[in-house]
């Protein structure tokens, strides 16, 4: 069984928002609803300054706080490691929003379900690739099977020594190059 994850290379991200918009279309989100958020981090002082854009979304944690607090088990983790929400079970209590250390949860207005990135999961499999990865103009995003050392994502993680956003806090499966 595969274990899906992603790499996001901030050294290639120019902040064009293509990922957010492709995701919105694919997942039928309203213009103001987004599974992907952007954080601009300016460091240093003029003229020795560096600017980094860090896109964040559901980190698909192995130890997912959102799943742990969900009173109805609407949030669950598939065998392939994708964190999903069962809309039939979600009661909209927002515990998951409070529990998620990455602020990745949003209330989807049309359904009331507290949603998030699902790696474009359809028909028992994640997107091939997910919409954000498919459209990324610079190839800053790489998706694949973390358990396969030959996969693009595993190779990229090794090459760049990519790390999860918050060390190993939640055993997340999105790796960052920063």
């Amino acid at each position, binding site marked *: 069984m595969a274990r899906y994850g992603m790499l996001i290379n901030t050294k290639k991200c120019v902040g*064009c928002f293509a990922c957010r918009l492709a995701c919105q279309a*694919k997942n039928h989100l309203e*213009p103001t609803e987004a599974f992907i958020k952007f954080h601009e981090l300016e460091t240093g002082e003029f003229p020795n300054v*560096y600017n980094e*854009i860090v896109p964040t979304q559901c980190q698909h944690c192995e130890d997912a706080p959102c799943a742990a607090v969900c009173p109805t088990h609407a949030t669950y983790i598939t065998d392939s490691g994708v964190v999903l929400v069962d809309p039939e079970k979600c009661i909209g209590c927002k515990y998951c929003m409070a529990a998620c250390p990455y602020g990745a949860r949003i209330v989807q207005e049309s359904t009331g379900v507290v949603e998030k990135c699902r790696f474009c999961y*359809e028909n028992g499999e994640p997107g091939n690739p997910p919409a954000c990865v498919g459209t990324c103009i610079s190839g800053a995003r790489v998706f694949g099977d973390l358990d396969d050392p030959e996969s693009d994502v595993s190779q990229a993680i090794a090459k760049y020594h990519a790390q999860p956003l918050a060390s190993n806090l939640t055993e997340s499966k999105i790796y960052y190059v920063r």
Partner: protein
Amino acid sequence: MFEDVSRRTFLKGTAATAALAAAGSLSLGAWRDQAQAAEAGGMSGEVRQAPSLCNGCSSKCGLVATTVGGKLYTLKGNETHPYSKGRICGRGHGLAQMAYSDERVTQPLRRKDNGEFEPIDWDTAFKEIGEKVKGIVAKSGPESLAIIQDPRPSGKYYSKRFMNALGSPNVYAHSSSCNLSKESAYMQTMGASNYSTDFGNAKMVMFIGRSYGDGIRPSSVQSLASAKEAGTRIVSVDPRLNNSGIFSSDWVPINPGTDLAFIMALCNVLIEEDLYDHEFVEQNTVGFDEFAAQAQEYTPEWAAKITDVPAERIQELARALAKAAPAASIESGWRAVIGCSYQNSFETARAASAVNALLGSYGAKGGALLTSSPSAGKLTDARFADPAKPEAKRVGNKEYPLALDSAGTNLAALKAALDGSMKGLFFYNSNAAKGYAQPKTWTEALQKTDLVVTIDVQMSETALQSDYVLPEVTYLERLELPEFIGGKKHFVGMRTAAIDKVLPDAKTCDEIFNGLAEACGVGEYFQFTAEDLATAQLATVGVDIDVMKKDGVVELPDPNFKYGVPKFKTPSGKFEFSTEAVGAAGLNPVIGYIPRKVTPKDGEFYIVGGKQGIHSHTMTQNIECLNAISREYHMERLWISAQDAEKLGVQTGDTVEVASSEHTGQVEARVTQRLKPGVVFLPTHYGGDSPVQTRAYQYGIALTDFIPFDMEPGTGSMMSQEVAVTVKKVEA
């Protein structure tokens, strides 16, 4: 023929097979996933894929739209297209949503005496416009008519044909507010309007004000990212650390509009330290001796005072370029300092191209490449014969003889309207009255004309000031003429009707011009559809239109690009450091220094504008999903350096008042370390004046409002940043 797709029926029998056939390259799995995902969002119907070309910027990237029941679901880049390479940027995704905007122009509109608009039918619109055009031609001659357009595949063809059929030579592109100075300059120095950087082999590349990460073409960002990873030294000369900064090895913050002094000092070092490519210069250039004699005075110390870039840094950069040569070059630039912003933009572009000549990088591996472009062959069908070339010269050609011939300067038409000689103006895909020069001047000019007709999809500021507004379908709804793409390889792309028509009363470009031409009495030149012409044009390059409709982009025979000194199509056949035509236009024929026109005094700021990755000109600011991003991330804010902000007591989120000789406006501030002190930066997409565009209306401020109406000598560019402003905090 197709049934609705649902979770239960999608694999049953012939419907699935037929839908699959229609879906082109979609695999069964992909198609099934799309159908299910679409259904989850309440979309139902047949799943299809159809190609088009993006309309988000002039790159016109190839894309593929997936539709469900004729409505757009998702977009992806066309893998074959050399600019998209399978990817679409944010503005591309966002612009596609324009088709379903609640604020499109839904039917032809006529302005009443009280300034309000009333809907009319197409026949009435054509008839009335036709009568007015005929009246203007009879009274003032066809040369008192003009069309201004932001070139698009069908639009540029039909605009020219329509004007020429009427007997008017006055066809203008938007270029005077874009890259006119650059393209005009390169025509003089090297006989081509552009060149490309051979990133894959480059050792050093210098950007003058341009940012691939803000004015985006996916393939360019990929090339830059790869070059960075391969260790190419990338230098960004810009008052602001732009969004390509992540790829830059060096950021050279410079006083805005002084790039020419910086570049001339690079030339000085290359010549005085004898670092230039003697063989290239002797064999492939003219005017070097005069150029070198003049460049003696442009020392790094001299430039340091003007640019605020230390002399040692200029020397180091020049030496590094020479060491990396010929795999080193100044990148060709686009808009900004080199395109239309200053009195010296044309000369800045000429100077940049001169650096590459000194480095011998033209045609070199890793250098600056002049590549070829394909075009359609001669058409035999008499219907497509061109109308006679108008006898009169285009208005502005005399005063601005250096303006690129295929573009002209539309501000000459504006001036002619101001003096009363231009009677009728047509705008196609162009919001000139907000974006191309001081808006008040446009308003004055439009009030003096007898007829203003705007063809657009939305009620822009220009449309609001027109006598007639004709609604076009959006680019995803229409087939257009083929677009030929040059480079190391050759391609042809085309728009198809990728989604179902959304508004029943909107028409395609060709339908509108055919109707106008008929009503104006020149219908004989318009006896065909865009598809008829596209079919014929494609046939001349051996491409079947049905293949085009399916694939969207087709590679043409390999032009067999080879490295080596290119053929310069100048009068001398060589790269020109000195050009007679430039002298004849009243400028120094030899590439040299010209200061910017307006320099801020004590207490004033330089102001620079720039593109953001999700927006294009003023066209996208009202699109709901893009406007939502701007608002969520406060992208309309004026950037101010931390040093200046501290002096003014301004913090991020505070409202500041910005004032120039022309205008005063208020906007929130963004305090940053990414900007040279003494400079403020304003994104150039905001400050809408059209109340009909409710999301964009009065959101942020617009740089054009702040600039005086003026034109660059020689080219007639808008000089978009020749102004100084004051900034003060607005106390709450």
